[in-house]
């Protein structure tokens, strides 16, 4: 299906050293830009959106899903970082709550309606028992990409 993005290992950064949510966003945006998934305006737009609508989620292993409007995105893609040192994101729906996030899934959404299906698969993957902890144990991006492909069915 054309609307399901291929999990691209070039967008996966295991054990990313970072001290803030903004730093993670900027790092993860680099391969997205280099591989033509997003426009140069993307990282700043994500940072601003995160400020207004935070995306931290208190899942089994806390995650964040930074993203922004489709006009900054050329193609559907998912950039992933695992963090050895958690960074603080604010919680989706409860911006006064802080979450120590250990994995970040940054989304390039170029067609929100068409891409709901894979976003839903991603949420199902988060909710699957043991999935996030298994993903976090991998130390190389090829293994992580393969695990994600299987988990998302793409």
């Amino acid at each position, binding site marked *: 299906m054309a609307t399901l993005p291929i999990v691209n290992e070039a967008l996966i950064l295991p054990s990313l050293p970072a001290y803030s949510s903004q730093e993670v966003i900027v790092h993860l945006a680099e391969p997205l830009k280099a591989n033509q998934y997003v426009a140069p305006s993307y990282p700043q737009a994500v940072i601003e*959106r995160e400020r207004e*609508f935070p995306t931290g989620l*208190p899942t089994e292993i806390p995650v964040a899903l930074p*993203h922004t409007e489709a006009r900054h995105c050329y193609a559907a893609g998912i950039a992933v970082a695992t963090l050895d040192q958690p960074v603080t994101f604010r919680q*989706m*729906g409860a911006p006064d709550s802080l979450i120590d996030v250990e994995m970040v899934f940054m989304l390039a959404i170029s067609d929100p*309606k068409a*891409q709901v299906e894979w976003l839903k698969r991603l949420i199902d993957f988060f*909710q699957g028992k043991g999935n996030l902890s298994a993903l976090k144990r991998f130390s190389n991006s090829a293994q992580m990409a393969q695990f994600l492909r299987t988990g998302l069915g793409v």
Partner: protein
Amino acid sequence: MAIKNIIVACGSGVATSNIAAEKLKDLLRDRNIRAEVRAVDIKSLEMEARHADLLVTITPYATRDQELGIKVLSGIPLLTGVGVDQLMEQIVELNK
């Protein structure tokens, strides 16, 4: 009161409310609750609420300073999986 129309709102409408709405549809089907579920933009919330029985919201901005006149529940469990059963129990209860 039968719950017939449910609206799901998030802050910016990029994707989150659509995902939560899809999850909610599946969960309602499992419980044999026949309700229409729609993801709506926060900007049209007041208007949409007139035709809805329940608002499930991903953002607190949705309820701030607004008298929508309908029941409001948090939709965060739809995204995290934590607290889904409690959320669905509340909806079942409202549907009685």
